[in-house]
Protein backbone atom coordinates (compact mmCIF):
# COMPACT_ATOMS: atom_id res chain seq x y z
CA UNK A 1 0.00 0.00 0.00
CA UNK A 2 1.25 3.43 -0.89
CA UNK A 3 0.88 6.78 0.79
CA UNK A 4 -2.42 8.26 1.77
CA UNK A 5 -4.49 9.44 -1.14
CA UNK A 6 -4.77 13.14 -0.70
CA UNK A 7 -8.11 14.41 -1.88
CA UNK A 8 -7.38 17.26 -4.18
CA UNK A 9 -10.30 19.40 -5.21
CA UNK A 10 -9.28 22.66 -6.75
CA UNK A 11 -11.66 25.11 -8.29
CA UNK A 12 -11.04 26.90 -11.52
CA UNK A 13 -10.61 30.64 -11.60
CA UNK A 14 -12.83 32.57 -11.78
CA UNK A 15 -14.24 30.86 -8.74
CA UNK A 16 -17.85 30.08 -7.97
CA UNK A 17 -18.89 30.64 -4.37
CA UNK A 18 -20.36 27.17 -3.87
CA UNK A 19 -17.06 25.45 -3.11
CA UNK A 20 -17.42 22.00 -1.57
CA UNK A 21 -14.92 23.12 1.04
CA UNK A 22 -17.33 25.55 2.55
CA UNK A 23 -19.11 23.11 4.83
CA UNK A 24 -17.75 24.63 8.02
CA UNK A 25 -20.29 27.23 8.93
CA UNK A 26 -20.16 29.67 11.80
CA UNK A 27 -23.94 29.94 12.03
CA UNK A 28 -24.60 26.62 13.71
CA UNK A 29 -26.73 26.79 16.84
CA UNK A 30 -24.82 24.91 19.54
CA UNK A 31 -27.85 22.75 20.34
CA UNK A 32 -27.82 21.44 16.78
CA UNK A 33 -24.28 20.57 15.82
CA UNK A 34 -25.27 18.83 12.59
CA UNK A 35 -23.80 20.45 9.51
CA UNK A 36 -25.25 19.79 6.09
CA UNK A 37 -22.29 18.51 4.09
CA UNK A 38 -21.72 18.60 0.36
CA UNK A 39 -21.41 15.37 -1.62
CA UNK A 40 -18.82 12.68 -0.76
CA UNK A 41 -16.80 13.67 -3.84
CA UNK A 42 -13.92 11.31 -3.08
CA UNK A 43 -14.68 7.62 -2.61
CA UNK A 44 -11.83 5.35 -1.56
CA UNK A 45 -12.50 1.63 -1.61
CA UNK A 46 -9.93 -0.32 0.35
CA UNK A 47 -10.86 -3.56 -1.35
CA UNK A 48 -8.61 -5.77 0.75
CA UNK A 49 -5.93 -5.66 3.41
CA UNK A 50 -4.07 -8.51 1.72
CA UNK A 51 -0.78 -7.27 0.33
CA UNK A 52 2.33 -8.96 -1.02
CA UNK A 53 4.46 -6.09 0.31
CA UNK A 54 5.40 -5.49 3.94
CA UNK A 55 6.21 -1.76 3.93
CA UNK A 56 7.44 -0.22 7.14
CA UNK A 57 5.55 3.05 6.46
CA UNK A 58 2.14 1.58 5.52
CA UNK A 59 -0.77 3.59 6.94
CA UNK A 60 -3.06 0.56 7.14
CA UNK A 61 -4.16 -0.18 10.71
CA UNK A 62 -1.73 -2.42 12.55
CA UNK A 63 -4.67 -4.56 13.68
CA UNK A 64 -5.77 -5.34 10.12
CA UNK A 65 -5.75 -9.05 10.98
CA UNK A 66 -8.80 -8.44 13.19
CA UNK A 67 -10.85 -7.14 10.26
CA UNK A 68 -13.91 -9.13 9.27
CA UNK A 69 -14.32 -10.88 5.92
CA UNK A 70 -13.97 -8.79 2.77
CA UNK A 71 -17.13 -7.56 1.05
CA UNK A 72 -18.32 -9.61 -1.88
CA UNK A 73 -18.44 -8.32 -5.44
CA UNK A 74 -22.16 -7.53 -5.37
CA UNK A 75 -21.70 -5.49 -2.18
CA UNK A 76 -18.90 -3.39 -3.70
CA UNK A 77 -21.03 -2.78 -6.79
CA UNK A 78 -23.91 -1.59 -4.61
CA UNK A 79 -21.54 0.78 -2.78
CA UNK A 80 -20.43 2.19 -6.13
CA UNK A 81 -24.01 2.78 -7.31
CA UNK A 82 -25.14 4.38 -4.05
CA UNK A 83 -22.08 6.61 -3.70
CA UNK A 84 -22.31 7.76 -7.31
CA UNK A 85 -25.97 8.67 -6.73
CA UNK A 86 -24.80 10.85 -3.82
CA UNK A 87 -22.28 12.65 -6.05
CA UNK A 88 -19.05 10.68 -5.60
CA UNK A 89 -16.94 11.13 -8.72
CA UNK A 90 -13.28 10.45 -7.89
CA UNK A 91 -12.80 6.77 -7.10
CA UNK A 92 -9.69 5.28 -5.54
CA UNK A 93 -9.27 1.51 -5.62
CA UNK A 94 -6.74 0.67 -3.00
CA UNK A 95 -5.95 -1.68 -0.16
CA UNK A 96 -3.74 -3.59 0.73
CA UNK A 97 -3.05 -4.53 -2.84
CA UNK A 98 -6.26 -4.21 -4.86
CA UNK A 99 -4.90 -6.53 -7.56
CA UNK A 100 -5.30 -9.43 -5.14
CA UNK A 101 -9.07 -9.10 -5.70
CA UNK A 102 -10.04 -11.34 -8.58
CA UNK A 103 -13.12 -9.21 -9.25
CA UNK A 104 -11.17 -6.00 -9.89
CA UNK A 105 -12.12 -5.88 -13.58
CA UNK A 106 -15.91 -6.13 -13.01
CA UNK A 107 -15.62 -3.52 -10.23
CA UNK A 108 -13.80 -1.16 -12.62
CA UNK A 109 -16.33 -1.86 -15.39
CA UNK A 110 -19.28 -0.93 -13.17
CA UNK A 111 -17.52 2.18 -11.86
CA UNK A 112 -16.81 3.26 -15.44
CA UNK A 113 -20.41 2.68 -16.48
CA UNK A 114 -21.50 4.91 -13.57
CA UNK A 115 -19.19 7.77 -14.62
CA UNK A 116 -16.47 7.60 -11.97
CA UNK A 117 -12.92 8.73 -12.69
CA UNK A 118 -11.11 5.58 -11.60
CA UNK A 119 -7.68 5.57 -9.96
CA UNK A 120 -5.95 2.26 -9.24
CA UNK A 121 -3.47 2.62 -6.39
CA UNK A 122 -1.11 -0.30 -6.57
CA UNK A 123 2.27 -1.76 -5.82
CA UNK A 124 2.21 -3.22 -9.32
CA UNK A 125 2.51 -6.76 -8.02
CA UNK A 126 0.03 -8.80 -10.05
CA UNK A 127 -0.31 -6.32 -12.90
CA UNK A 128 0.35 -8.64 -15.83
CA UNK A 129 -0.15 -7.59 -19.43
CA UNK A 130 -3.49 -9.43 -19.85
CA UNK A 131 -4.71 -7.79 -16.63
CA UNK A 132 -3.65 -4.27 -17.58
CA UNK A 133 -5.33 -4.71 -20.98
CA UNK A 134 -8.56 -5.98 -19.37
CA UNK A 135 -8.55 -3.03 -16.94
CA UNK A 136 -8.10 -0.61 -19.84
CA UNK A 137 -11.01 -2.17 -21.71
CA UNK A 138 -13.12 -1.98 -18.54
CA UNK A 139 -12.48 1.78 -18.34
CA UNK A 140 -9.72 2.28 -15.77
CA UNK A 141 -8.54 5.89 -16.06
CA UNK A 142 -5.25 6.01 -14.20
CA UNK A 143 -2.67 3.93 -12.35
CA UNK A 144 -0.69 5.18 -9.38
CA UNK A 145 2.35 2.97 -8.99
CA UNK A 146 4.30 2.96 -5.76
CA UNK A 147 8.04 2.61 -5.51
CA UNK A 148 9.92 2.51 -2.25
CA UNK A 149 13.20 3.80 -3.67
CA UNK A 150 15.22 4.26 -6.84
CA UNK A 151 17.50 1.35 -6.08
CA UNK A 152 16.65 -2.31 -6.05
CA UNK A 153 18.43 -2.78 -2.74
CA UNK A 154 16.52 -0.10 -0.82
CA UNK A 155 13.18 -0.70 -2.56
CA UNK A 156 13.31 -4.36 -1.73
CA UNK A 157 14.51 -3.74 1.82
CA UNK A 158 11.77 -1.23 2.67
CA UNK A 159 9.00 -3.42 1.29
CA UNK A 160 10.62 -6.62 2.53
CA UNK A 161 10.15 -8.15 -0.92
CA UNK A 162 12.02 -8.55 -4.20
CA UNK A 163 9.78 -6.38 -6.32
CA UNK A 164 11.93 -3.62 -7.82
CA UNK A 165 12.46 -5.28 -11.21
CA UNK A 166 8.81 -6.29 -11.41
CA UNK A 167 7.68 -2.72 -10.65
CA UNK A 168 9.99 -1.41 -13.35
CA UNK A 169 8.36 -3.75 -15.89
CA UNK A 170 4.91 -2.63 -14.74
CA UNK A 171 5.91 1.01 -15.26
CA UNK A 172 6.71 0.19 -18.89
CA UNK A 173 3.35 -1.57 -19.29
CA UNK A 174 1.51 1.46 -17.90
CA UNK A 175 3.11 3.61 -20.61
CA UNK A 176 2.53 0.99 -23.30
CA UNK A 177 -1.20 1.00 -22.50
CA UNK A 178 -1.29 4.79 -22.48
CA UNK A 179 -2.44 5.35 -18.91
CA UNK A 180 -1.47 8.56 -17.14
CA UNK A 181 1.19 7.44 -14.66
CA UNK A 182 1.58 8.76 -11.17
CA UNK A 183 4.68 7.49 -9.49
CA UNK A 184 4.35 7.57 -5.73
CA UNK A 185 7.36 7.33 -3.47
CA UNK A 186 6.88 7.66 0.26
CA UNK A 187 9.86 9.53 1.67
CA UNK A 188 11.46 9.07 5.07
CA UNK A 189 14.79 9.06 6.81
CA UNK A 190 16.05 5.97 4.99
CA UNK A 191 15.39 7.09 1.40
CA UNK A 192 14.98 10.88 1.37
CA UNK A 193 18.63 11.38 0.43
CA UNK A 194 17.90 9.60 -2.85
CA UNK A 195 15.37 12.15 -4.12
CA UNK A 196 17.41 13.15 -7.16
CA UNK A 197 17.88 9.55 -8.25
CA UNK A 198 14.18 8.89 -7.63
CA UNK A 199 13.22 11.82 -9.87
CA UNK A 200 15.60 10.63 -12.58
CA UNK A 201 14.01 7.20 -12.38
CA UNK A 202 10.56 8.79 -12.73
CA UNK A 203 11.69 10.74 -15.77
CA UNK A 204 13.16 7.64 -17.41
CA UNK A 205 9.88 5.82 -16.83
CA UNK A 206 7.87 8.64 -18.39
CA UNK A 207 5.80 9.45 -15.31
CA UNK A 208 3.26 12.25 -15.71
CA UNK A 209 3.14 13.02 -12.01
CA UNK A 210 5.55 12.21 -9.19
CA UNK A 211 4.43 12.31 -5.60
CA UNK A 212 7.30 12.59 -3.16
CA UNK A 213 5.18 12.34 -0.06
CA UNK A 214 6.93 12.32 3.25
CA UNK A 215 5.61 9.64 5.54
CA UNK A 216 2.56 10.50 7.55
CA UNK A 217 2.71 8.81 10.88
CA UNK A 218 -0.29 6.51 11.19
CA UNK A 219 -0.59 2.73 11.32
CA UNK A 220 2.71 0.97 10.69
CA UNK A 221 4.53 4.25 10.13
CA UNK A 222 3.49 5.32 13.65
CA UNK A 223 5.11 2.15 15.02
CA UNK A 224 8.33 3.01 13.16
CA UNK A 225 8.18 6.75 13.70
CA UNK A 226 11.57 7.21 15.34
CA UNK A 227 13.42 5.36 12.60
CA UNK A 228 11.52 7.01 9.74
CA UNK A 229 11.59 10.68 10.82
CA UNK A 230 13.97 12.61 8.57
CA UNK A 231 16.27 15.32 9.88
CA UNK A 232 15.80 18.97 8.96
CA UNK A 233 19.01 18.90 6.95
CA UNK A 234 17.75 15.91 4.96
CA UNK A 235 14.48 17.69 4.14
CA UNK A 236 16.27 20.85 3.05
CA UNK A 237 18.62 18.88 0.80
CA UNK A 238 15.70 16.99 -0.71
CA UNK A 239 13.73 20.17 -1.38
CA UNK A 240 16.78 21.74 -2.98
CA UNK A 241 17.36 18.66 -5.16
CA UNK A 242 13.70 18.77 -6.22
CA UNK A 243 13.95 22.46 -7.08
CA UNK A 244 17.09 21.89 -9.19
CA UNK A 245 15.45 18.98 -10.95
CA UNK A 246 12.35 21.03 -11.79
CA UNK A 247 14.55 23.68 -13.40
CA UNK A 248 16.19 21.27 -15.81
CA UNK A 249 13.03 19.29 -16.58
CA UNK A 250 12.37 19.38 -20.32
CA UNK A 251 8.88 17.86 -20.48
CA UNK A 252 5.67 18.15 -18.47
CA UNK A 253 6.12 16.04 -15.36
CA UNK A 254 4.44 17.48 -12.31
CA UNK A 255 6.29 16.95 -9.06
CA UNK A 256 4.56 17.15 -5.71
CA UNK A 257 6.83 17.37 -2.71
CA UNK A 258 4.90 16.93 0.51
CA UNK A 259 6.89 17.99 3.56
CA UNK A 260 6.49 16.00 6.76
CA UNK A 261 3.95 17.88 8.82
CA UNK A 262 5.95 17.43 12.03
CA UNK A 263 8.22 20.14 10.63
CA UNK A 264 5.36 22.57 10.00
CA UNK A 265 3.98 25.25 12.32
CA UNK A 266 0.40 24.93 11.09
CA UNK A 267 -1.46 21.66 10.60
CA UNK A 268 -2.64 20.27 7.29
CA UNK A 269 -6.32 20.75 6.43
CA UNK A 270 -6.70 17.01 6.83
CA UNK A 271 -9.40 15.59 4.51
CA UNK A 272 -10.67 19.18 4.12
CA UNK A 273 -12.27 18.52 7.49
CA UNK A 274 -13.61 15.10 8.43
CA UNK A 275 -16.86 14.30 6.66
CA UNK A 276 -16.56 17.10 4.13
CA UNK A 277 -15.58 15.37 0.86
CA UNK A 278 -13.92 12.06 1.67
CA UNK A 279 -15.49 8.63 2.20
CA UNK A 280 -13.49 5.44 2.74
CA UNK A 281 -14.93 1.94 2.78
CA UNK A 282 -12.63 -0.60 4.43
CA UNK A 283 -12.42 -4.24 3.28
CA UNK A 284 -15.10 -5.41 5.71
CA UNK A 285 -17.52 -2.63 4.75
CA UNK A 286 -16.88 -0.22 7.61
CA UNK A 287 -17.33 3.36 6.40
CA UNK A 288 -14.81 5.93 7.62
CA UNK A 289 -14.37 9.68 7.04
CA UNK A 290 -10.64 9.02 6.53
CA UNK A 291 -8.65 5.82 6.14
CA UNK A 292 -7.15 6.09 9.64
CA UNK A 293 -10.27 7.19 11.52
CA UNK A 294 -11.15 3.78 12.94
CA UNK A 295 -8.63 4.47 15.72
CA UNK A 296 -10.70 7.39 17.05
CA UNK A 297 -12.30 6.32 20.33
CA UNK A 298 -15.96 6.81 21.17
CA UNK A 299 -17.11 7.07 17.57
CA UNK A 300 -19.36 4.53 15.92
CA UNK A 301 -18.68 3.95 12.27
CA UNK A 302 -21.44 2.38 10.21
CA UNK A 303 -21.07 -0.57 7.86
CA UNK A 304 -22.36 -0.66 4.30
CA UNK A 305 -23.85 -4.07 5.05
CA UNK A 306 -26.55 -2.47 7.16
CA UNK A 307 -26.68 1.17 6.11
CA UNK A 308 -27.02 2.98 2.81
CA UNK A 309 -24.34 5.44 1.66
CA UNK A 310 -26.86 8.28 2.13
CA UNK A 311 -27.54 7.21 5.75
CA UNK A 312 -23.82 6.82 6.38
CA UNK A 313 -22.87 10.19 4.92
CA UNK A 314 -25.71 12.33 6.21
CA UNK A 315 -27.06 10.63 9.32
CA UNK A 316 -24.37 8.60 11.10
CA UNK A 317 -22.77 9.96 14.26
CA UNK A 318 -19.33 8.82 13.11
CA UNK A 319 -19.52 11.14 10.09
CA UNK A 320 -21.27 14.04 11.82
CA UNK A 321 -19.18 14.24 14.95
CA UNK A 322 -16.29 16.30 13.59
CA UNK A 323 -18.26 18.31 11.05
CA UNK A 324 -18.51 22.03 11.57
CA UNK A 325 -16.87 23.62 14.59
CA UNK A 326 -19.02 22.69 17.56
CA UNK A 327 -16.53 19.97 18.59
CA UNK A 328 -13.54 22.33 18.71
CA UNK A 329 -11.65 23.25 21.84
CA UNK A 330 -9.33 26.16 22.41
CA UNK A 331 -7.12 27.32 20.80
CA UNK A 332 -9.02 26.19 17.66
CA UNK A 333 -12.47 27.37 18.74
CA UNK A 334 -11.54 31.05 18.60
CA UNK A 335 -8.73 30.79 16.07
CA UNK A 336 -9.08 32.94 12.95
CA UNK A 337 -7.48 30.14 10.92
CA UNK A 338 -9.98 27.43 11.95
CA UNK A 339 -11.86 27.73 8.65
CA UNK A 340 -8.67 27.03 6.74
CA UNK A 341 -7.17 24.00 8.50
CA UNK A 342 -10.18 22.77 10.57
CA UNK A 343 -7.84 22.21 13.51
CA UNK A 344 -5.67 19.76 11.53
CA UNK A 345 -5.81 16.00 11.78
CA UNK A 346 -8.09 14.35 14.36
CA UNK A 347 -6.10 11.12 14.28
CA UNK A 348 -2.83 12.92 14.89
CA UNK A 349 -4.42 14.85 17.77
CA UNK A 350 -5.57 11.56 19.26
CA UNK A 351 -2.31 9.68 18.71
CA UNK A 352 -0.18 12.40 20.26
CA UNK A 353 -2.42 13.94 22.94
CA UNK A 354 -4.96 11.22 23.69
CA UNK A 355 -7.91 13.49 22.80
CA UNK A 356 -9.14 13.65 19.21
CA UNK A 357 -10.83 17.03 19.84
CA UNK A 358 -7.58 18.77 20.69
CA UNK A 359 -5.77 20.93 18.19
CA UNK A 360 -3.41 18.93 15.99
CA UNK A 361 -0.16 19.38 17.97
CA UNK A 362 1.69 20.18 14.74
CA UNK A 363 0.23 23.67 15.28
CA UNK A 364 2.57 25.84 17.33
CA UNK A 365 -0.50 27.38 19.01
CA UNK A 366 -1.33 23.99 20.51
CA UNK A 367 -0.38 23.54 24.18
CA UNK A 368 0.84 20.09 23.12
CA UNK A 369 3.16 21.32 20.36
CA UNK A 370 6.16 20.18 22.41
CA UNK A 371 5.13 16.57 21.73
CA UNK A 372 5.98 17.21 18.09
CA UNK A 373 9.09 19.29 18.63
CA UNK A 374 10.51 16.62 20.96
CA UNK A 375 10.25 14.01 18.21
CA UNK A 376 11.81 16.42 15.75
CA UNK A 377 14.63 17.19 18.19
CA UNK A 378 15.43 13.49 18.54
CA UNK A 379 15.52 13.16 14.74
CA UNK A 380 18.06 16.00 14.62
CA UNK A 381 20.39 14.94 17.38
CA UNK A 382 24.01 14.55 16.29
CA UNK A 383 24.48 11.09 14.83
CA UNK A 384 26.22 8.55 16.96
CA UNK A 385 28.76 6.25 15.29
CA UNK A 386 26.40 3.33 15.85
CA UNK A 387 23.76 4.91 13.60
CA UNK A 388 25.68 4.25 10.41
CA UNK A 389 25.37 6.49 7.37
CA UNK A 390 21.95 8.06 6.92
CA UNK A 391 20.20 6.59 3.92
CA UNK A 392 22.02 3.32 4.11
CA UNK A 393 20.18 0.10 4.72
CA UNK A 394 20.43 -0.25 8.48
CA UNK A 395 22.77 -3.00 9.44
CA UNK A 396 21.56 -5.76 11.66
CA UNK A 397 23.53 -4.38 14.58
CA UNK A 398 21.68 -1.04 14.59
CA UNK A 399 18.37 -2.85 14.37
CA UNK A 400 18.82 -4.87 17.51
CA UNK A 401 17.91 -2.10 19.91
CA UNK A 402 14.76 -0.99 18.07
CA UNK A 403 13.90 -3.06 15.04
CA UNK A 404 11.80 -1.74 12.19
CA UNK A 405 8.42 -3.41 12.27
CA UNK A 406 7.37 -4.61 8.83
CA UNK A 407 3.68 -4.75 7.96
CA UNK A 408 2.80 -8.42 8.03
CA UNK A 409 0.02 -10.67 9.32
CA UNK A 410 2.44 -12.08 11.92
CA UNK A 411 3.39 -8.63 13.22
CA UNK A 412 -0.26 -7.56 13.21
CA UNK A 413 -1.10 -10.53 15.40
CA UNK A 414 1.91 -9.86 17.64
CA UNK A 415 0.98 -6.20 18.16
CA UNK A 416 -2.63 -7.06 18.93
CA UNK A 417 -2.61 -10.39 20.77
Amino acid at each position, binding site marked *: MSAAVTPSVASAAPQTPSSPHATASTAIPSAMPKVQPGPPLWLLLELTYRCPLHCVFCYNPTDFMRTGPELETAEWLRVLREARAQGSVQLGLSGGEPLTREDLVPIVAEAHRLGFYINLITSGVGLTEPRIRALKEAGLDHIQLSFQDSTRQMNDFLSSTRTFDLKSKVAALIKQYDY*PMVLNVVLHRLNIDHVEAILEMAQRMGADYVELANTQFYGWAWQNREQLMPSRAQIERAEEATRRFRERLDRPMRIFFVVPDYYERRPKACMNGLGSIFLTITPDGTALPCHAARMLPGLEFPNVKNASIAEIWFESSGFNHFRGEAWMKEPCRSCPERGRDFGGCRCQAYLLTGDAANADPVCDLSPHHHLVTEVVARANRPPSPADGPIGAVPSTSTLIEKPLIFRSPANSAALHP
Partner: protein
Amino acid sequence: MSTSSISLDSRPAVGRGFRLQWEAAQNAYVLLYPEGMIKLNTSAGEIMKRCNGEATIAEITQDLERAFATNGLAGDVIAFVTMAHGKHWLAVPT
Protein backbone atom coordinates in the same frame (compact mmCIF):
# COMPACT_ATOMS: atom_id res chain seq x y z
CA MET B 1 3.89 25.60 -25.96
CA SER B 2 3.89 29.28 -26.84
CA THR B 3 0.61 30.83 -25.75
CA SER B 4 0.93 33.49 -28.43
CA SER B 5 -0.06 30.82 -30.96
CA ILE B 6 -3.70 30.96 -29.78
CA SER B 7 -5.91 32.84 -32.19
CA LEU B 8 -9.47 32.87 -33.50
CA ASP B 9 -8.47 30.06 -35.86
CA SER B 10 -7.22 27.74 -33.10
CA ARG B 11 -9.15 24.51 -32.49
CA PRO B 12 -8.78 23.69 -28.78
CA ALA B 13 -9.59 20.27 -27.33
CA VAL B 14 -9.67 18.91 -23.78
CA GLY B 15 -6.09 18.11 -22.83
CA ARG B 16 -4.68 14.60 -22.68
CA GLY B 17 -5.13 13.15 -19.23
CA PHE B 18 -8.17 15.29 -18.45
CA ARG B 19 -11.83 14.37 -18.69
CA LEU B 20 -14.60 16.95 -18.84
CA GLN B 21 -17.88 15.85 -17.33
CA TRP B 22 -21.17 17.35 -16.15
CA GLU B 23 -21.80 16.61 -12.47
CA ALA B 24 -25.42 17.07 -11.46
CA ALA B 25 -24.56 16.79 -7.76
CA GLN B 26 -22.31 19.84 -8.09
CA ASN B 27 -24.43 21.57 -10.72
CA ALA B 28 -21.21 22.17 -12.62
CA TYR B 29 -18.85 20.86 -15.24
CA VAL B 30 -15.74 19.35 -13.69
CA LEU B 31 -12.35 18.44 -15.10
CA LEU B 32 -11.15 15.10 -13.81
CA TYR B 33 -7.55 13.98 -13.78
CA PRO B 34 -5.45 11.55 -11.71
CA GLU B 35 -6.59 11.94 -8.10
CA GLY B 36 -7.93 15.42 -8.66
CA MET B 37 -10.85 17.48 -9.84
CA ILE B 38 -11.33 21.05 -10.94
CA LYS B 39 -14.81 22.45 -10.55
CA LEU B 40 -15.49 24.86 -13.38
CA ASN B 41 -17.66 27.91 -13.03
CA THR B 42 -20.47 28.43 -15.52
CA SER B 43 -18.56 30.37 -18.13
CA ALA B 44 -15.50 28.10 -17.98
CA GLY B 45 -17.76 25.06 -18.35
CA GLU B 46 -19.67 26.57 -21.26
CA ILE B 47 -16.42 27.32 -23.10
CA MET B 48 -14.76 23.99 -22.37
CA LYS B 49 -17.70 21.86 -23.42
CA ARG B 50 -17.43 23.43 -26.87
CA CYS B 51 -13.71 22.67 -27.17
CA ASN B 52 -13.98 19.50 -29.24
CA GLY B 53 -10.87 19.90 -31.39
CA GLU B 54 -13.00 20.73 -34.44
CA ALA B 55 -14.59 24.09 -33.67
CA THR B 56 -12.39 27.17 -33.97
CA ILE B 57 -12.32 29.78 -31.24
CA ALA B 58 -14.22 32.04 -33.63
CA GLU B 59 -16.96 29.41 -33.99
CA ILE B 60 -17.01 28.72 -30.24
CA THR B 61 -17.38 32.44 -29.60
CA GLN B 62 -20.23 32.78 -32.09
CA ASP B 63 -22.01 29.82 -30.53
CA LEU B 64 -21.65 31.27 -27.04
CA GLU B 65 -22.84 34.70 -28.16
CA ARG B 66 -25.88 33.08 -29.77
CA ALA B 67 -26.61 30.89 -26.72
CA PHE B 68 -26.36 33.75 -24.25
CA ALA B 69 -27.76 36.49 -26.53
CA THR B 70 -24.74 38.71 -26.18
CA ASN B 71 -21.67 39.73 -28.15
CA GLY B 72 -18.06 40.78 -27.73
CA LEU B 73 -16.99 37.55 -26.02
CA ALA B 74 -13.95 36.79 -28.21
CA GLY B 75 -11.48 38.41 -25.83
CA ASP B 76 -12.83 36.47 -22.83
CA VAL B 77 -12.76 33.18 -24.74
CA ILE B 78 -9.18 33.71 -25.91
CA ALA B 79 -8.12 34.69 -22.39
CA PHE B 80 -9.70 31.56 -20.92
CA VAL B 81 -8.29 29.24 -23.59
CA THR B 82 -4.85 30.78 -23.07
CA MET B 83 -5.06 30.22 -19.31
CA ALA B 84 -6.44 26.67 -19.69
CA HIS B 85 -3.79 25.84 -22.29
CA GLY B 86 -1.10 26.97 -19.86
CA LYS B 87 -2.50 24.54 -17.30
CA HIS B 88 -2.78 21.74 -19.91
CA TRP B 89 -6.57 21.57 -19.45
CA LEU B 90 -6.80 22.32 -23.16
CA ALA B 91 -4.58 21.22 -25.99
CA VAL B 92 -4.30 23.62 -28.91
CA PRO B 93 -2.77 22.01 -31.99
CA THR B 94 -0.78 24.45 -34.06
